[in-house]
């Protein structure tokens, strides 16, 4: 113990006065630290992209195609351009450079190039001094269309003589697909299905359908483009991946990437819907043309046309099991509708194929997944990314097989559950915990919600808790309860050989009498809480309490996408890695400054904890602030990659394609008014393994939010596309329904933490897995309540009443 002189607060050893025993830094990983942006978000001061404002700013607006497939004969913009207050009108002919873009295949026109391929495709742009002026001017653009026949499903897309939507394809998939209207096709073949079939005691076949779900993030697409004096442009934007946007925008503008500077603005949710460009290039084009800042904000109607959706799917499955309830084989054909442009369809196909059997061991597999080009709205990334559609089908099949064999559905799943060491249909060995049976056991063991919860103390019903609510459709007479289970498997991170890296820059410096860390990444905070976790990691690694999160922009290297449940893993890994370098440099600095005071500087393992340099034995050597005082900031930048993956073989689907798997199980309890076909989800319980909960509060929030989106797909969410015309019929929150607080039940969550030895801190990506199994669990519960087969989601009242 050193009493220490008060002057300067420093002891001869460099330790702060009165403190010699190290203590853990508060606010590090594993704690439910609160969001750093929470206060701004509750006061209304947080600047979302739609809140941005600039002096002299103009408003951009997009004219969109009213047809799903048409040739553009002529475009007359004269009247629009002559409208007072209008500063620019742009069509395909005005594009200065590249005219197409895309995440994987560059097949999407910036503005329609003579043909429109889906309802709502951008045709022209207007910039005006008032949003209403821009809208009215756009309505004055005269476009002469010649309608073309539409392809809207597999039969029409691959029929002899069907219109080829992208003739002359030169992309990497073109040579491997059986028809040019197929974007990508991935088989997965393993074992001997024919031989296994001969041994099967129970065989179940089924066809399933998943409707087109929308991300329906609350904050509409928006951004502000500001032309710069150097001929470049500054773009403030709500997106999921700044650098992927940049890579696509710069060629469209004809600018080098360093002249397109992008800064993330507040993002009001994403869920995959902001992975593709929406208004980014459009706003920049208008800004560069007019020389004025241009803001674009989609309204809800336009938002439904402005981003890709979840692929609707038709799935045909056959499962065979032996008398003991062990899966012998699975065959599946999964047809995903990719719509007019490729977006991320190839990767979605890879996921659907490789995860098609679910979290089960099955030695014999014959699967084919493909995505179509059609004249339907383009589909791409949405939470769950190809695994959601497969999970709905294989979980329905598992219930039917269990029934066929006379087994309890959970017991049947348990007998087939994969575990660490299991081999995937792709041949990949699962080399980290895969507690599928345990998650099922846990979710089943949760206490059941009481029966007849809608009965009040007075004996009468509280209508609000019944199917139909205060519509007063029932007082409980025809209400039946059902319980359903499901479990799913989702890959974490980008797969199939993608170079899935992230970059972080971390600085540690003396400011205001203490050590302050700054974390700079290009990670898009879209609501998931990445900024919270990054601060927690920096506190843990650097032992500081004050951490500043630098705004995300393109002045630091790519962080990759905020998707695939990967940001905590990959960018979190990069932050940790950069912190380690900073720590080493700080310790070297400490040795130079104070090394002569205490031999431990030279010999001991040193840590940074609670603002101090301590030995691994807990002895304090110096205050971090004293090490840093008077010095230049210590800064390090690091790129970080997870283990490499490899592409799936195009014929067999074999390959180590995924880096990590995550698992969640659900139990749904529903009550159904069988006369009117109304469903009330009473409870949706979830058990999920997260490896390590870096922030338990955020983890629970992600699980509940993901579960709710799955509930939405189960009973209400679908973009309705007219099969005859390819037109979207419900682009509004009046007609596209997402769950309200009345539709959403209590959601108890049981979090398991079995560390993945290959991941930073043992963590496992969280956000997507709960979106998979909630849908089949809810539908299984409705099946149990009603006895109906229910092969399609969303389940609608007419499916329950036989109408």
């Amino acid at each position: 113990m050193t009493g220490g002189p008060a002057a300067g607060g420093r002891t001869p050893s460099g330790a702060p006065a009165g403190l010699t025993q190290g203590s853990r830094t508060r606010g590090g990983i594993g704690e439910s630290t609160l969001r750093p942006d929470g206060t701004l978000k509750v006061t209304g001061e947080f600047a979302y992209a739609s809140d941005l404002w600039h002096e002299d700013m103009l408003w951009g607006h997009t004219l969109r195609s009213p047809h799903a497939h048409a040739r553009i004969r002529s475009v007359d913009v004269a009247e629009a351009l002559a409208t007072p207050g209008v500063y620019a009108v742009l069509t395909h002919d005005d594009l200065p450079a590249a005219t197409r873009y895309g995440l994987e295949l560059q097949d999407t026109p910036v503005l329609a190039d003579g043909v429109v391929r889906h309802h709502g495709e951008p045709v022209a742009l207007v910039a005006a001094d008032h949003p209403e002026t821009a809208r009215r001017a756009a309505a004055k653009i005269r476009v002469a269309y010649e309608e073309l026949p539409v392809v809207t499903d597999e039969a029409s897309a691959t029929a002899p003589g069907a219109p080829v939507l992208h003739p002359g394809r030169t992309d990497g998939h073109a040579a491997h697909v059986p028809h040019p209207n197929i974007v990508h096709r991935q088989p997965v073949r393993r074992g001997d299905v024919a031989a296994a079939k001969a041994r099967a005691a129970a065989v179940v076949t089924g066809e399933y359908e998943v409707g087109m779900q929308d991300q329906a993030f609350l904050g509409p697409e928006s951004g502000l483009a500001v032309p710069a004096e150097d001929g470049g442009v500054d773009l403030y934007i709500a997106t999921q991946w700044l650098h992927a946007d940049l890579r696509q925008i710069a060629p469209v503008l004809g600018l080098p990437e360093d002249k397109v500077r992008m800064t993330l603005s507040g993002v009001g949710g994403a869920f995959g819907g902001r992975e593709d460009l929406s208004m980014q290039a459009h706003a920049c084009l208008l800004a560069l043309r007019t020389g004025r800042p241009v803001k674009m904000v989609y309204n809800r109607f336009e938002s439904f046309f402005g981003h890709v959706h979840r692929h609707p799917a038709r799935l045909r499955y056959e499962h065979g099991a032996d008398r003991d309830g062990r899966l012998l084989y699975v065959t599946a054909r999964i047809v995903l509708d990719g719509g007019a442009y490729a977006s991320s369809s190839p990767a979605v196909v890879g996921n659907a194929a490789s995860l098609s059997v679910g979290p089960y061991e099955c030695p014999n597999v014959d699967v084919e997944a493909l995505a179509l080009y059609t004249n339907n709205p383009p589909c791409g990334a949405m939470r769950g990314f190809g695994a959601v559609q497969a999970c709905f089908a294989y979980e329905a099949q598992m219930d039917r097989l269990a029934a066929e064999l006379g087994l309890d559905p959970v017991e049947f799943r348990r007998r087939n559950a994969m575990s660490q060491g299991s081999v995937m249909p792709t041949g990949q060995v699962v080399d980290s915990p895969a507690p599928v049976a345990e998650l099922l056991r846990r979710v089943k063991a949760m206490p059941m919600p009481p029966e007849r919860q809608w009965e009040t103390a007075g004996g009468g019903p509280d209508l609000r808790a019944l199917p139909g609510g205060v519509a007063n459709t029932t007082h409980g007479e025809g209400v039946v309860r059902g319980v359903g289970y499901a479990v799913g498997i989702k890959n974490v991170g980008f797969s199939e050989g993608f170079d899935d890296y992230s970059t972080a820059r971390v600085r540690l410096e003396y400011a205001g009498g203490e050590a302050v860390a700054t974390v700079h990444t290009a990670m898009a905070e879209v609501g998931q809480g990445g900024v919270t976790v990054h601060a927690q990691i920096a506190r843990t690694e650097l032992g500081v309490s004050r951490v500043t999160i630098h705004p995300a922009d393109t002045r630091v290297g790519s962080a990759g996408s905020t998707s695939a449940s990967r940001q905590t893993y990959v960018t979190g890994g990069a932050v940790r890695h950069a912190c380690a370098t900073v720590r080493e440099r700080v310790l070297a600095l400490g040795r130079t400054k104070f090394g002569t005071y205490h031999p431990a500087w030279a010999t001991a393992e040193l840590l940074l904890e609670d603002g101090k340099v301590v030995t691994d034995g807990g002895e304090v050597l110096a205050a971090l602030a004293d090490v840093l005082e008077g010095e230049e900031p210590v800064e390090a930048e690091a790129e970080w990659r997870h283990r490499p993956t490899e592409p799936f073989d195009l014929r067999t689907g074999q390959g180590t394609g995924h880096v990590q798997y995550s698992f969640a199980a659900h139990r749904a309890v529903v009550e159904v008014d069988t006369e009117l076909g109304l469903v009330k989800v009473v409870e949706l319980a979830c058990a999920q393994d997260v490896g390590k909960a870096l922030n338990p509060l955020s983890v629970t929030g992600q699980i509940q939010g993901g579960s709710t989106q799955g509930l939405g797909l189960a009973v209400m969410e679908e973009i309705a596309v007219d099969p005859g015309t390819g037109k979207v019929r419900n682009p509004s929150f009046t007609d596209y329904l997402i769950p309200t607080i009345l539709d959403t039940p209590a959601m108890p969550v049981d979090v398991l933490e079995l560390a993945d030895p290959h991941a930073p801190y043992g963590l496992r990506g969280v956000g997507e897995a709960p979106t998979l199994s909630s849908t089949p669990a809810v539908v299984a519960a409705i099946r149990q309540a009603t006895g109906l087969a229910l092969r399609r989601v969303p389940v609608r009242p007419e499916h329950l009443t036989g109408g």
Partner: protein
Amino acid sequence: MRVNMTVNGRPQRADDVWEGESLLYVLRERLGLPGSKNACEQGECGSCTVRLDGVPVCACLVAAGQAEGRDIVTVEGLAARAGVPDGRLSPVQRAFVDAGAVQCGFCTPGLLVAADDLLARDPDPSDADIREALSGNLCRCTGYEKILDAVRLAAARGGGGVGDEAGRDGQEG
């Protein structure tokens, strides 16, 4: 046209307002109060909920002219309304942060105005009451469970008028 109104206790005037403009547009684009969010423009999502003479309404469905001479409270005015010192959070705002009810946060301002209104009417609401009161506000991130937690927490802490002990910088703990 010109519209005069009281917003968060202060007289405000907006000039050159088009007849078709909504109260939401005037608040956001003319008065510099972007706290109320625009997510659907048809009264379905509740993100733009404000109190108009004390009654919660969707500001996107109120024509600007209808606001003439009226009293409006937006999310920016909740703290002052709760009587907490400048720069502090109202109890409902504090509870939303503490309970983890804020993720992307886009729905949060509207939910806060609706929850504040509920707790002003009923300081001890049941879960069914909370669900009913917030049923006009869509949230896409949270699954609503933590929003329920937040309103319960605010009610338990004594809903209206209790100061924000932790202060605005106290959220990272």
